[in-house]
């Protein structure tokens, strides 16, 4: 606490009409002038603009201000901006406080008088607080110059490669037996129709071979400790039971394996063995044994694969392998957890699951793929006949509050057009019907692509929703409405394809809570700011890439991945980083060493000194949450620049008004 009262300057922003439209700025300025300690108060149209910042900087010098209160938008927006201004004017950056009169003022109140009164209160709060702020210097901590990438899809691969190519080590964690993710399952990509695996494959290999990238497949993040620049991550890894170095993928093991399970790569349209290669281009190019579906390892139930491998193969199978734990230290983490499809069985009106010829877009995708169950031929799953009528239902269960998916998955209009076109190329005498709500083809070359499809004969776009899909005497009937002709239509279909929505992958919630990164209302990773910081989580040191953040197509995903990588590189570029010094502090003479606070600290920043018997804080570990302060029965603990005195001064500012 400063002994001599600070000379405080108050700056009130109009933010164009955002604030001034509701709040009487002049009145806020006048009333601020009357506050104790305030020697200067002025308003400005846009304080965050260069002239605005200059005004603050110059006034500090001319008016000999010790402290500054900026009444403007939320501190989440420009707190650092104005702290920097204050610093550049030669004051300690902690002599600056923000009064939030926009997000929690002008924007939420209609009554001008009340909005103005509340803004005045906010200003008073800030004045009270800044008066009691102490000048602090940032705490410097070292940065571990390594990056963890979670998720081995195209986003994870791209981000890992960018960081690795910049010369930093990367840990790439993937839950399945290979990297590649969803993109590897795709047949072609819109709008250029180039073969998905052909463009992905080389990247997979590059990532796998890259000296700076260490791949942990069959792995998941177990635990995350620490903070930006200094994360300690525990990875748990399932064994592959196959020695990658020795395996030459001869496949003898799979031949003899008795355990058959649906092949997730083919969306369950085909079967695979318990020992298998996920797909042809999988890296590492070796077989994997999935212990969940193996007849038994502990105790060993069959062991046929090992026998076969020892006999015909390179005896690379070790059935006694154990799961491993890896302790990793990284400075930044990139979350690239990707997406899954909404459970189509929940959309009972479309009858998915009651008839094999009703399929999801990703199942249809597999059927289009040369590496798919039908090697690229389109057949009805029910009886293998070539379908003549195929109905595509866009927005299946999407843009629909009832299903919990009010959002648009962004890619469906495009891939459905592609699907219809591919179908028509493969079955020239076939007829494709596409039910759509509206076509969203924003993107380079997208609109042109859709137009091409729409003009192609044999593709019929029907604007409207499908009411139900039902089976009448072995024939699929699609009943919907064509809102352009205003008629209900009934279509006899051989195959019905549902463009179901993208949802965050199942384990992203678990990862988020370990990373302490917040999610949005749908379970996608939340960004720090939708416009200004779309690549970062609000939690420092966590960066976002791909469809785990929001539904995205491949170009957007790759772009965001490179963006996230460069954000991480920005952090790694310096060996140390500054941490907020607003941490807990103990007044030794008042502490009795009762120890109540010790177990409350999630960061073990508190300890009892063996010599003095009283509590000590490790400033480097403290995150400044303040829970220990609230618990301290003797008031010996305080939070720098958010002391009880300061909070109560703010409370008084509120109730005294």
């Amino acid at each position: 606490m400063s002994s001599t009262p600070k000379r405080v300057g108050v700056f009130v922003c109009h933010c164009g009409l955002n604030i001034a439209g509701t709040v009487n700025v002049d009145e806020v300025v006048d009333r601020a002038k009357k506050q104790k300690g305030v020697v200067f108060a002025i308003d400005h149209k846009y304080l965050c603009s260069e002239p605005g910042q200059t005004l603050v900087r110059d006034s500090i010098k001319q008016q000999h201000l010790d402290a500054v209160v900026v009444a403007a938008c939320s501190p989440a927006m420009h707190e650092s901006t104005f702290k920097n201004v204050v610093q550049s004017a030669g004051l300690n950056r902690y002599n600056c406080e923000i009064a939030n009169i926009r997000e929690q003022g002008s924007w939420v109140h209609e009554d001008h008088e009340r909005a103005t009164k509340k803004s005045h209160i906010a200003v008073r709060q800030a004045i009270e607080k800044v008066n009691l702020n102490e000048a602090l210097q940032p705490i410097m901590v070292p940065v571990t110059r390594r990056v963890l990438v979670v998720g081995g899809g195209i986003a994870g691969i791209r981000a890992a490669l960018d960081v690795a190519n910049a010369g930093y080590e990367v840990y790439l964690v993937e839950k399945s037996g290979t990297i590649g993710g969803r993109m590897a399952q795709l047949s072609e990509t819109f709008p250029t129709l180039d073969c998905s695996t052909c463009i992905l494959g080389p990247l997979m290999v590059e990532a796998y071979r890259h000296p700076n990238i260490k791949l942990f497949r069959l792995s998941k993040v177990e635990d995350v400790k620490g903070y930006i620049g200094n994360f300690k991550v525990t990875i748990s890894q399932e064994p592959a039971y196959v020695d990658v170095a020795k395996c030459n993928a001869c496949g003898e093991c799979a031949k003899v394996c008795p355990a058959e399970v649906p092949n997730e790569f083919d969306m369950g349209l085909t079967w695979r063995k318990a020992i298998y290669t996920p797909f042809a281009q999988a890296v590492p190019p070796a077989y994997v044994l999935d212990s969940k579906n193996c007849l038994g390892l502990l105790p060993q139930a069959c062991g046929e694969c090992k026998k076969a491998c020892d006999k015909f193969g390179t005896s690379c199978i070790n059935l006694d392998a154990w799961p491993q734990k890896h302790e990793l230290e990284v400075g930044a983490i990139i979350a690239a957890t990707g997406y899954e499809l909404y459970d189509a069985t929940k959309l009972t009106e479309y009858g998915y699951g009651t008839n094999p010829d009703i399929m999801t877009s990703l199942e249809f995708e597999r059927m289009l793929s040369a590496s798919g169950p039908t090697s690229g031929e389109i057949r009805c799953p029910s009886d293998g006949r070539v379908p003549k009528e195929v109905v595509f239902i866009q927005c299946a269960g999407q843009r629909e509050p009832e299903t919990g998916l009010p959002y648009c998955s962004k890619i469906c209009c495009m891939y459905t057009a592609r699907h219809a076109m591919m179908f028509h190329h493969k079955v020239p005498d076939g007829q494709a019907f596409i039910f759509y709500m509206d076509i969203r083809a924003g993107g380079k070359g997208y609109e042109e692509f859709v137009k091409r499809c729409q003009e192609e004969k044999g593709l019929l776009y029907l604007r409207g929703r499908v009411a139900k899909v039902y089976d009448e005497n072995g024939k699929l009937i699609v009943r919907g409405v064509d809102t352009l002709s205003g008629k209900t239509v009934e279509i006899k279909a051989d195959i019905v394809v549902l463009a179901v929505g993208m949802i965050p992958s199942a384990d992203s919630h678990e990862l988020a809570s370990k990373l302490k990164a917040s999610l949005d209302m749908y379970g996608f990773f939340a960004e720090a700011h939708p416009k200004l910081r779309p690549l970062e989580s609000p939690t420092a040191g966590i960066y976002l890439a791909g469809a785990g953040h929001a539904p995205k197509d491949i170009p957007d995903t790759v772009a965001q991945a490179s963006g996230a990588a460069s954000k991480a590189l920005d952090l790694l570029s310096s060996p140390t980083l500054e941490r907020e010094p607003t941490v807990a502090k103990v007044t030794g003479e008042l502490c009795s060493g009762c120890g109540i606070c010790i177990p409350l600290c999630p960061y073990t920043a508190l300890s009892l000194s063996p010599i003095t018997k009283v509590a000590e804080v490790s400033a480097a570990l403290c995150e400044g949450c303040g829970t220990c302060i609230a618990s301290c029965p003797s008031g010996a603990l305080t939070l720098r620049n958010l002391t009880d005195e300061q909070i109560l001064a703010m409370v008084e500012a509120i109730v005294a008004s």
Partner: protein
Amino acid sequence: MTTEFEPKIVGFLCRWCSYAGADLAGTNRLKYPSNISSIRVNCSGRIDPTLVMKALALGADGVLIAGCHPGDCHYTNGNIKTLRRFKLLQKMLDQFGIERERVRLEWISAAEGDRYAQVVRNMTEQVRSLGPLNWQRKMEVTA
């Protein structure tokens, strides 16, 4: 009373979830009564019952403590520690005769701008119908 009573509500909002949620309410231009003024703290775990009681003693008619949903705390489980304190505090405030509607603990995530607005509307109305708390005067009453 000639003019309607306008309660004074002090809001302690955690920086990562609830304050961000309150900001989101603003970004979405949701409207709620201006009776609440917020104080941004890093974590709801910072809130010492002393601060709540002092606020009431100083003349606040209601106090809202808002933090992240359990499991989502930016500091692992600061909100759980708040919940522990709050449960016992609530029991004691009952003894003091302070209605539960006046002191509330709510979980509001950064995505729940609408929820924040709703909570504030609802709480303001409840406190308004309870009338002023006026603790200062109650303490002075001797005769």
